[in-house]
């Protein structure tokens, strides 16, 4: 393996960082699309030079950009995200019905085997798919159309579909997560969906163990063991050993079980990472110490990873899509902060260093391990 490419989406543009396998010197390219919010960028597993980026602004809405040369050049593709049929309503913050309105694309998930196929998770929560490289988008309407849809409410950041996981071992099985509706599973390539939230407990909703209404912040899966899912919920870190049929809490000895991202080591399916955040009101690390927590036991037992991370006066946040791993022999772990730093570890989290430190607030981080 010859190198690593980090795709960073920020509040004011996109950045592409590249390094060789040592991962100690980085070249930074950007900003691409300066001034625009880049919620997410991701490369195709089938063609690493095919990248997709979600570009948006309050003035001019949504644009989707595509690169066919690894991020050197980009071209806008289709940006029409039309809900299928009459969209109906969900609940607004005050509990009144509110029409479904497209706001932006939060997450792009390219197909595992076709560079021209890509899913988009959007706000207001919906799932779209393109089969022509992003030129046109069709909704997979049964998710938004689930019978519980009219009861869904937005989280503070909007009612977003932010996580899409594709099961490499079972074609057609995919997972999605919505704030604040919960986790959902499809076994037929997104044609039909059902909630998978049994075992979640959320004190902020009227029925703490309701079928839907949970503010799931992020799901993670190891591709070699796709039946095991990990979840960072608003509060609580959770695990499922049966494809989401049921969940159990694995927060264990974390200093706070509030947070946003969660990810899995590329070679060790039971090694997982979270970044504890103080609380839903205080979106910064406990005690002003930026600590990644790692469990090597699939949860419950956690160790703080601090070497190279600021351990005083640090009050940044790490957003849900802003952590990723590479698949080099020594697994690299990466995360971006709202303070504009991207930290990387080339040794599974044992030590960290900023690979760039003064970007706009980082919204997303993805990593490609290049052949």
């Amino acid at each position, binding site marked *: 393996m010859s190198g690593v490419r980090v795709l960073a989406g920020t509040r004011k543009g996109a950045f592409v960082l590249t390094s060789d396998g040592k991962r100690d010197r980085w070249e930074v390219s950007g900003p691409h699309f300066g001034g625009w919010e880049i919620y997410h960028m991701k490369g195709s597993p089938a063609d690493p030079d095919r990248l997709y980026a979600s570009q948006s*602004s*309050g*003035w*001019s809405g949504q644009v989707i950009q595509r690169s066919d040369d690894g991020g050197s050049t980009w071209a*806008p593709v289709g940006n029409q995200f039309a809900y299928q049929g009459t969209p109906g309503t969900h609940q607004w913050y005050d509990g009144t019905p509110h029409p479904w309105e497209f706001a932006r694309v939060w997450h792009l998930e390219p197909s595992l085997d076709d560079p021209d196929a890509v899913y988009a998770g959007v706000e207001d929560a919906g799932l779209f798919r393109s089969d022509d490289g992003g030129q046109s988008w069709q909704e997979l309407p049964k998710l938004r159309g689930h019978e519980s849809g009219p009861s869904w409410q937005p989280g503070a950041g909007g009612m977003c579909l932010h996580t899409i996981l594709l099961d490499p071992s079972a074609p057609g099985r995919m997972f999605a997560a919505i704030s604040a509706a919960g986790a959902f599973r499809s076994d037929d390539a997104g044609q039909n969906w059902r909630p998978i939230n049994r075992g979640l407990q959320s004190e902020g909703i009227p029925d703490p163990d309701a079928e839907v209404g949970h503010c799931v912040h992020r799901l993670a899966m190891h591709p070699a063991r796709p039946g095991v899912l990990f979840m960072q919920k608003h509060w609580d870190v959770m695990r499922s050993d049966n494809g989401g049929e049921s969940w159990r809490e694995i927060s264990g000895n974390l200093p706070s079980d509030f947070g946003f991202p969660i990810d899995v080591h590329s070679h060790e399916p039971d090694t997982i990472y979270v970044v504890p955040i103080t609380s839903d009101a205080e979106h910064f690390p406990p005690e002003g110490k930026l600590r990644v927590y790692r469990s090597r036991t699939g949860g419950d037992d956690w160790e703080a990873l601090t070497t190279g991370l600021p351990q005083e006066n640090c009050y940044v946040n790490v957003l849900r899509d802003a952590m990723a791993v590479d698949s080099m022999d020594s697994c690299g772990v990466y995360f971006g902060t709202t303070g504009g730093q991207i930290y990387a570890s080339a040794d599974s989290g044992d030590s960290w260093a900023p690979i760039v430190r003064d970007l706009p607030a980082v919204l997303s981080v993805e990593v490609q391990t290049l052949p």
Partner: protein
Amino acid sequence: MIRVVLPAHLRTLACIDGEVHLDIDGPVTQRTVLDALEARYPMLRGTIRGHDGGPRRAFIRFFASELDLSHAPPDDLLPNAVAAGTEPYLVVGAMAGG
């Protein structure tokens, strides 16, 4: 010839350097100008108004001849100075910060 000035972020998106010059047959209205603009630069569809000629995006404004035309009916004729090409039609990003 109709002169159109776009905000910087849309000029960058469409790889436009300076003003856009459009030739329009028939009445010169906001709709016909934007239709011609989007026909030449398809990547601008959805960024100024809704797709297929939909409503103006909330934080986009249309000015011409020192008038705010943002709320004018899209099929009203634009000022003669715009139709004659002596003054530009301005597509403006509202002062909304961010």
